[in-house]
C-alpha cells in the first residue's frame, strides 16, 4: 500500500467549510427559465406553441369578458347597450341568480335553506376534522331531522316522530338483547320499520293536534337549482354510508349466500347507467310498492340515488377494509369481541378513516351526476337554465348561464377534491 498520496493518507479537517451560495448560472430566474422552458429544441417548441395558444385564447375571449354588461333586464336590452360589439350579458345572472341557487323556493323563506346549509357544515365538522369535540356527533345524528324540517316545513312533530323510530329500535335492542344478541339485532331492525310504516304518522298527527308547532310547508316541486343538487347529493351519500358498510361487509363475508347477494347487487348497480335508475325512480318505483302508496318525487329520487351511491361506497369501504392489517381482526378476536362489536369498535373506525378520501371522491362524482335529474323533470341548474331560456326576456342566452353553472360546480368540486387530497396526505403520515 503506497504511503505517498496526500489524499489517501490519514487526514483530519480542522476547520469546517461554511455553506456557500451556488454559482450564478445554476440558480435564479435565468436558470429556471433555461431548465424548465427552453431546455432542448422540443421543449422550446412546446413553450412557444403553448404561449401562442394562451395568447389566442386571451385575444378571442378577453373582449367578451371585457365588455360585459351586468345591468340589463333582457337579452335585447343587452344587445342594444353593446351596439354591435362582442360582449357577455351577465344581466341574466344578476336577474336570476336566486333561481339558479334556490329554484322556485319562496323568496321570503330563503333563510331556511341557508340556515340548513350552515348547520350542515357544522354537522359535518366532527366527521371531517378530527380536532372537533366528539359531543358534536349527537348534533350530526339529529341534523337530518332538523334539515328536513327547515327545508320542507310543516309540523315539527313529523321529523321528531321519524327520529323517534331510531330510539324505538335502540329500546327494542336493549329489551331483547337479553334473550339473545341475534334476536335483539333483528328486533333493532324490525321495530323502527314497523314504527315508520304504521305508527309514526299517527303519532305525529296526534301530537300536532295537541301542540300545533310548525312552519310554513313548501312543496317539493318548488325545489330546484343548486339547492336541489346539494340536497340530493348530501342525502344520498349520508344515507348510503350505512348501507354501503353492510354491503362491503357482506361482500367480504365467508357466507356464500350473503356474499352472492351483495356482489350481485353491487355489480348490477355499477353496470347500469344512473339515468336508468332515475327513470326507475320516476316511472317504476310505484309498481314495486303496495298499490295506493305514492311518494314524493324527490324522496323517490333520493332512494334510488342512495342505492346507487351505496354500491360505489361499498367498493370504497372495501378498499379501506383491505388496508387494515389482518392483525387487527386477530387482536379483536383474541380479546373476545364478537363480530359486530369488533366491527363497531375496532375495524370500522379505522377503515372509514382510511376510506374518507375515496368517500369524498364518490361524493364529488355523485354531485356532478345530480344534473341528470333534468331528464325526469326536476329542476336542477341545467333544467333551470332551460326554464330561464324559455322566458321571453332571455330567449337565446347560452354562454353566460352555462358559464355560471359550470363555475359554481367547478368551485364546489375543485374545493372538495383539494380537501380530499389534503386528507390523503394527512392520513398517509398518520398511518406510518
Amino acid at each position, binding site marked *: 500500500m503506497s504511503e505517498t498520496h496526500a489524499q489517501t493518507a490519514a487526514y483530519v479537517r480542522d476547520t469546517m467549510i461554511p455553506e456557500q451560495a451556488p454559482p450564478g448560472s445554476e440558480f435564479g430566474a435565468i436558470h429556471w427559465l433555461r431548465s*424548465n422552458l427552453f431546455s432542448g429544441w422540443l421543449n422550446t417548441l412546446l413553450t412557444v406553441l403553448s404561449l401562442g395558444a*394562451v395568447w389566442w385564447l386571451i385575444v378571442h375571449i378577453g373582449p367578451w369578458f371585457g365588455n360585459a354588461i351586468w345591468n340589463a333586464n333582457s337579452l335585447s336590452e343587452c344587445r342594444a347597450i353593446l351596439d354591435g360589439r362582442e360582449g357577455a350579458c351577465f344581466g341574466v345572472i344578476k336577474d336570476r341568480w336566486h333561481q339558479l341557487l334556490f329554484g322556485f323556493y319562496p323568496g321570503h323563506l330563503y333563510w331556511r335553506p341557508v340556515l340548513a346549509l350552515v348547520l350542515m357544515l357544522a354537522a359535518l365538522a366532527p366527521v371531517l376534522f378530527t380536532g372537533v369535540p366528539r359531543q358534536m356527533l349527537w348534533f350530526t345524528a339529529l341534523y337530518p331531522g332538523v334539515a328536513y324540517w327547515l327545508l320542507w316545513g310543516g309540523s315539527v312533530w313529523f321529523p321528531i316522530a321519524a327520529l323517534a323510530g331510531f330510539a324505538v329500535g335502540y329500546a327494542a335492542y336493549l329489551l331483547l338483547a337479553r334473550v339473545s344478541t341475534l334476536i335483539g339485532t333483528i328486533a333493532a331492525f324490525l321495530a323502527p320499520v314497523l314504527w315508520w310504516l304504521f305508527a309514526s304518522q299517527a303519532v305525529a298527527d296526534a301530537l300536532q293536534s295537541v301542540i300545533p308547532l310548525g312552519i310554513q310547508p313548501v312543496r317539493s316541486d318548488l325545489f330546484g337549482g343548486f339547492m336541489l343538487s346539494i340536497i340530493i347529493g348530501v342525502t344520498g351519500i349520508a344515507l348510503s354510508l350505512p348501507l354501503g358498510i353492510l354491503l362491503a361487509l357482506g361482500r367480504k363475508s365467508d357466507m356464500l349466500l350473503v356474499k352472492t347477494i351483495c356482489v350481485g347487487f353491487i355489480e348490477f348497480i355499477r353496470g*347500469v347507467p344512473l339515468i336508468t335508475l332515475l327513470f326507475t325512480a320516476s316511472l317504476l318505483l310505484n*309498481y314495486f310498492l303496495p298499490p295506493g302508496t305514492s311518494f314524493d318525487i324527490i324522496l323517490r329520487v333520493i332512494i334510488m340515488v342512495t342505492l346507487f351511491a351505496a354500491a360505489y361506497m361499498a367498493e370504497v369501504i372495501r378498499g379501506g377494509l383491505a388496508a387494515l392489517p389482518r392483525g387487527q381482526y386477530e387482536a379483536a378476536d383474541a380479546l373476545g369481541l364478537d363480530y359486530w362489536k369488533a366491527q363497531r369498535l375496532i375495524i370500522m373506525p379505522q377503515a372509514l378513516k382510511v376510506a374518507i378520501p375515496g368517500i369524498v371522491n364518490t361524493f364529488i362524482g355523485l354531485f356532478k351526476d345530480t344534473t341528470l335529474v*333534468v331528464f325526469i323533470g326536476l329542476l336542477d341548474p*341545467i333544467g333551470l337554465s332551460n326554464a330561464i331560456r324559455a322566458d321571453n326576456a332571455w330567449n337565446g342566452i347560452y354562454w353566460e348561464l352555462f358559464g355560471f*353553472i359550470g363555475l359554481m360546480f*367547478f368551485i364546489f368540486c375543485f374545493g372538495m377534491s383539494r380537501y380530499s387530497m389534503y386528507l390523503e396526505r394527512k392520513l398517509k403520515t398518520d398511518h406510518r
Partner: protein
Amino acid sequence: MLVYDTRYRSLTIQVVFLFLFMAGAAWLIDNTLQNLARLGKDFSFNFLWSRAGYDINQRFVEYDSGMTHGRAMLVGLLNTLFVAALACVTATVIGVLAGVARLSTNWIVGRLMTVYVEGFRNVPLLLWILVIFAVMTEAMPQPSAFRGDEPAASMLLFDSVAITNRGTYIPEPLFARSLGDIYVGLFYISLDLVAVIAVFIASLLGNRVLLRHAERVQNETGVRPRTWWKSVLILFVPLLILLSALGFHLRYPELRGFNFQDGIFMRNSLMALWLALSLYTGAFIAENVRAGILAISRGQTEAAFALGMRPRRTMRLVILPQALRVIIPPLISQYLNITKNTSLALAVGYMDLRSTLGGITINQTGRELEGMMLMMLVYLVISLLISLAMNIYNRSVRLKER
C-alpha cells in the same frame, strides 16, 4: 342453540337471510303484479315485434318507420356502441398525451394540462355535452357561408372537411371495383370492409413474425437488426395494394344548392357527444396515466441507469411494463363509464339505445317496466363483458409474489 354452535352458525344465518330475502322479493313481485292488474297491463315483450312508427336519423343498418320496435332497439344499440368505441379511442389518445404532458419538465405545458384536467373533471359531463353542442350549432357557419367568391367560411384539410352548424361533412370512401355486400340475416356487411380488415390483421401477424425473427437474431448474436422500416412496409404496403386494386377513392363533400352533398354527414349531436365524452373522460385517463407512471418508484429508473441503460430503453423495458399494470385496470373502468355515459345522448337528440328503447318506444307503447328491464339488461351485459376483459387482463399480468 344453532346460532351459537360455530359449526352451524353460518348455515343458520344464511338460511334466515335467504328466508328474509325471498320474503322481500315475493312482496315486491306481488306488489308489481297487483299494480299491473290495476292498470290493466300485462307483462310481455310482444311490443318488440310491433310496428315502431318513428324515424331514426342516424343508423348503421336498414331501418324505416315501418319496421319493428325490436329493430329500432338494434339501431339504437349500434349507435351506442359506435359512439362509445369512437370516444374510447380518442379519450385514450387525449388522456395518454395529457397525462405524459403533465409530467413534463416544461412548466407551461404542465400547467396548461393541469388546467385542462382540473377544468374538465370538475364540471358535470351533461354540461360539457350541452356546451359543445351549443358551440357547434351556434358558433359554426351555415352551409351557405361557404359559397361565393369571398366565402365567410372555408373547408379544412385541403377542402375536404366542412364544419357547419348542422354537422360535419367528411369525405366518403368509395370503391370503384367494389366486391359488393352480403346479407347476414339482420343487415348487410360490405365485403370490401371485410377484405380491408382481413389484410390488416394479416399485416399485424406478419409484423409479429418479423419481430420474433429479430428477437431470435438478437438472442444468437447480441445485435438486434433494424426493423422499423421493414415494419412500416409490412404494415402499410399490402393495405395500399388492396385499396388500389379495389379502386379506392374519396368522394369529397360539395356545396350544391343549399347544402353539402356527397361525403359522409356526421351530425352535430354525434360530434358533440363524441367530443364531450372524449375530453371529459380523457381528463380522468390523464390522471390515471400520471398516477401509474408516478407509482413506479424512482429506484427502478436509477437501477436501470446505473446498469448503463439509456432513458428510452429504460422506459420501454422497465418502466412501461410496470406502469401499464397500474394504468390499464382503471382505464378499462373509464371505458365502462364512457359506455354508460352515452345514455346522455337524449340531451342532444342522438338516437342511442336509451333514446330509442328507453325513450320513444316506451312512450309509444306504454311498456315502461319491460322496456326498462330490457335496457338495463343490455347495459348490464355490456358492462359485465368489459369487466370480464379487465379481470382476464389482471390475471394474466399479475406480478408473482410470495
